[in-house]
């Protein structure tokens, strides 16, 4: 039996300083709530009390908004608390996922160059879903205003993902 504690740098989770280089800035955001809503798209929007759910490349704005994950699933950032479970009347399923995803803000002049290192993405290739594979990590990626991006990553992966972004950022010239 081996003790591999030393082999892995201690996990910092969400408690970490912002990462800053001339090329990019990266920091952790802590939304009050993240809520997963599954069901027919209109029903999901109505339940979330939002007009639309953001995809790519359009930008999400403000603090309370929804992003589109699947044909029949959205993630609501902030907004009202909803009870978990099956909402028969609306025909939607709701789960609190506030602690399930770490939320990162990426900015800086080379932010998009950094993103291109992890996934084949262009500003014009539209996609309804913000979910994509990023260097093997399952992320949500969307714009939050010009040159500003937000990423959500399963919270158990944030340590690895953060250090990957830091490694990739070092390659930017």
């Amino acid at each position, binding site marked *: 039996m081996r003790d591999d504690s030393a082999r892995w740098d201690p996990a910092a989770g969400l408690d970490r300083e912002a990462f800053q280089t001339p090329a990019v800035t990266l920091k952790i955001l802590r939304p009050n709530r993240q809520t997963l809503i599954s069901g027919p798209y209109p029903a999901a929007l109505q339940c979330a009390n939002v007009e639309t759910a953001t995809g790519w490349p359009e930008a999400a704005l403000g603090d309370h908004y929804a992003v589109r994950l*699947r044909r029949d699933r959205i993630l609501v950032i902030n907004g009202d608390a909803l009870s978990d479970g099956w909402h028969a009347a609306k025909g939607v399923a709701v789960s609190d996922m506030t602690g399930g995803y770490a939320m990162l803000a990426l900015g800086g002049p080379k932010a998009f160059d950094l993103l291109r290192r992890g996934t084949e993405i262009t500003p014009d290739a539209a*996609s309804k879903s913000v*979910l994509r594979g990023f260097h093997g990590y399952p992320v949500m990626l969307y714009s939050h205003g010009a040159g500003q991006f937000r990423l959500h990553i399963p919270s158990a992966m944030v340590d690895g993902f953060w250090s990957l972004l830091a490694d990739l950022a070092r390659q930017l010239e």
Partner: protein
Amino acid sequence: MQKFPCPFCGLRDEREFRFAAEAGKRRPDTTRDISARDWSDHLHVVRNPLGATREIWVHMPCQEYFVMARDTAAMTVLDVEPLRKETV
């Protein structure tokens, strides 16, 4: 690196997709008797054509299962449609 069109997300590169099965198979009603041959045909036998084929794929990020018609030699995508019924 191929690009496949997820019926929901649009074009993404092949790393986001997983091959599920050949299209066109229906799971037999297993509450009835099924001969060993029929079951083996269902579970194991495939057409595996050289050229045009229809397959079920999943776009892993958005978990969309869909039918993709493609050419297994030319590596071209001919057509895609969702496996489930379309909803907005």
